[in-house]
């Protein structure tokens, strides 16, 4: 193999794809990046068998061929490259030689024939969605998904279409986030469960591309693609829990607070919070009292009188403050509302005037 390409392009592609490669695997080839030089492109590919990605960059190829080298190694080298000079790649014996204007590096390569092919998702029902909205929708909820693999259904982000909106849902059974994003005419987006483990990489790579992306979905697999990019991930099988029925329909107590104020209070609560992140929240609208308390047997106790608009019945509950602060990243409104039905039922967090995001937090037992 012998090829030349722009250093800038190569560096960017490696940076995007490097993290997709597997780590701590029994099969070393999965920790490699695969590079193929065809007529006029370099195809750069990595996979960990859960997710696979491929980026195509233009190149001047004088000799076609394939090579596989350690992703970690290549990543380190690529991040150190600078300048806009052309970069040449050449294989010699079992080595890949990377040359720039000033430097020459020789990397040990692996047997590229052992590198897995990426499954191609072929369907007639592919459609385009705007990357921006898709990524922000997923990021608005993905932190709420379960992290353990015990229940794969909830270790996923649930996506489905509701009219002209795409709905993103994630929960770990203690809190739940739902985001609705208007995407216009998405013809038919099927219900899917996207494994949360793959979401970081998918959104990270997608967010570096502008415009829209083609989405193809078959039963167990999803792919995102355009002319230069192809990402594919497995989908979680099974059914998502019927979460709509637990969404509270009414509210008996409501608290509205400026988002900035809330962030400051939560920060100060952090000082005294124990390992369960507990805070006590007492709301008494009749006497206009609202306090948050956190205590820790080792460090002490903090009480904050919260300045907020209160209404409804008095309530006294205990919450995990981390769950609350998690949700604030998804709220763009200036004010945040908490609404409650009963002390042992879920609290609903919303941005005031923003119906697209709903967040449920279960109280803690006392």
């Amino acid at each position: 193999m012998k090829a030349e390409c722009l250093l800038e392009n190569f560096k960017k592609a490696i940076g995007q794809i490097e993290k997709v490669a597997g780590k701590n695997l029994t099969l070393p080839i999965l920790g490699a990046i695969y590079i193929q030089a065809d007529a006029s492109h370099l195809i750069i590919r990595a996979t960990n068998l859960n997710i696979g990605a491929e980026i195509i960059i233009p190149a001047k190829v004088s000799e076609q061929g394939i090579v596989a080298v350690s992703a970690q190694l290549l990543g380190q080298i690529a991040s150190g490259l600078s300048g806009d000079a052309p970069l040449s790649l050449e294989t010699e014996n079992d080595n890949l030689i990377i040359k720039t204007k000033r430097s020459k590096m020789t990397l040990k390569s692996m047997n590229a024939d052992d590198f897995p092919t990426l499954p191609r998702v072929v369907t007639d029902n592919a459609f385009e969605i705007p990357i921006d909205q898709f990524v922000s929708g997923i990021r608005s909820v993905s932190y709420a998904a379960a992290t353990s693999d015990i229940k794969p259904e909830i270790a996923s982000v649930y996506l489905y279409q509701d009219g002209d909106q795409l709905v993103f849902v994630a929960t770990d059974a203690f809190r739940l986030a739902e985001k609705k994003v208007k995407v216009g005419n998405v013809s038919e987006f099927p219900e899917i469960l996207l494994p949360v483990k793959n979401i970081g990489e998918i959104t990270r790579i997608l967010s570096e591309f502008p415009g829209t992306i083609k989405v193809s979905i078959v039963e167990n697999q999803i792919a995102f693609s355009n002319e230069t990019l192809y990402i594919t991930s497995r989908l979680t099988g099974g059914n998502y829990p019927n979460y709509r029925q637990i969404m509270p329909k009414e509210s008996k107590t409501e608290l509205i607070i400026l988002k900035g104020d809330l962030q400051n209070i939560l920060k100060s609560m952090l000082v005294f919070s124990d390992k369960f992140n507990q805070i006590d929240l007492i709301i008494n609208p009749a006497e206009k009292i609202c306090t948050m308390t956190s205590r820790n047997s080792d460090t002490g106790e903090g009480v904050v009188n919260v300045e907020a608009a209160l209404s409804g019945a008095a309530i006294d509950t205990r919450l995990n403050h981390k769950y609350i602060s998690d949700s604030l990243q998804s709220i763009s409104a200036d004010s945040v509302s908490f609404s409650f039905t009963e002390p042992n039922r879920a609290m609903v967090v919303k941005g005031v005037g923003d119906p697209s995001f709903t967040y449920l937090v279960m109280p803690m037992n006392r």
Partner: protein
Amino acid sequence: MQDVQTTWQTVLHDLELVVSKAMFTTWFKNTHGVKSEDGIFFVGVPNEFYREWLSTKFHKEILKNLRAHDEHVRNVEYVISKTAPIPSMSPKPQPTMQAKELPLEMSVGRRDNLNPKYTFDNFIIGPFNEVAYSAGQATLRNPGTYNPLFIYGATGLGKTHLIQGIGNSMKIKNPNINILYTNTEKFTNDYVSALQTNKINSFKEKYRSYDVFIMDDIQFLSGRDKTQEELFHLFNTFFDKGRQVIFSSDKHPNYIQGLEDRLKSRLSQGMIIDISKPEYESRIAILNAKCREHGIAIAHEVLDFIAMHVEGNIRELEGIFNTLMAQMDVKKRELNIQEVKLLIKNNIKPKKNVSVEDIIKTIAHFYNLDESLIYEKTRRKEIVRARQVAMYILREDFSISFPLIGRKMGGRDHTTVIHSCDKIKTEVQTDTELAQEIEQIRSMLST
């Protein structure tokens, strides 16, 4: 034929020798044999990546090895199987210390087992079941009003239709409601298998996660003590949370043999309603509804004849109706009344002709007495009791006249018989043991 799992295991052993260890653990560890059909062997793989790779890279090797063990195999297909464990690609994240939080009540892929065919639209209401129907409607409007709602009646009278109809209507009213319709058999099996696999907690959790619990044919619970205990606790949970529970049985709970008293009292605390046999008018209504449902017209006199002569349960009525339809279909015309008479004669169970002597014999046998003792003029307490029960049953169940009973019972006066019947009748109300005895005798007589 060899079991696919074993075949695949032996193939794996062979492959292990050919490919490197690292390759083997990565690509083959999580595969398994699924099935073998028409010469095609299906291999379950964790996801699309595996399918792609195995079919491009190892296909020949796999096929060769498979053929060595099973010459019928002509091809191999790879299917993505959800049962295959997905290998964890990153180190397992440590579960964060979750405080004792209430888990959201969620369920995964549940099925309510309700048969959508049973709705209130095709439920015929007559005097025989109107109380049960209105109780069902009340439950529908305000779940938890009658908790539990207990419907009982003989077989084939529409208990299942009614309770499933309640479930289906609830679902229409609130599509997100979690309903479970089950029967005693399923519940018991589920419980037993949970015990065997040590998953009793997930069993409890599963059943406690429903909003409405409907259980059919609970008379089969008799003698299943542990299952009853489980149901008892389950019911308490539902009751405390104000969630609706609906039961059906062929007997009043007090007469279900081998049912624990605490469960009986729970069953009795809500509303107990019986469905009796449909009377003539209702039978006509049911037949008319059937005609409408199938879009056929049958002469009024024919329907009248059927309703008049088929006195049994609704299922029998349906049976006759279906036979009628089939006959009409074959003959391509309506049947006349003569043909219908013939049809019914063949289909109806002949009315049971039990002789008085037989009944007395059965009852004497039940009380472990010699038959002749019943007829004798003795006042020994146990014999008197048996005799009185016999008179009561003859009168109540077989409508035999008082004087005839007296004559059959060794020439007693009809006033003696009246007295005995009244006595047992009042005692039955209070004496549950006696009531059970009579229920048992009745079931013996009806078989």
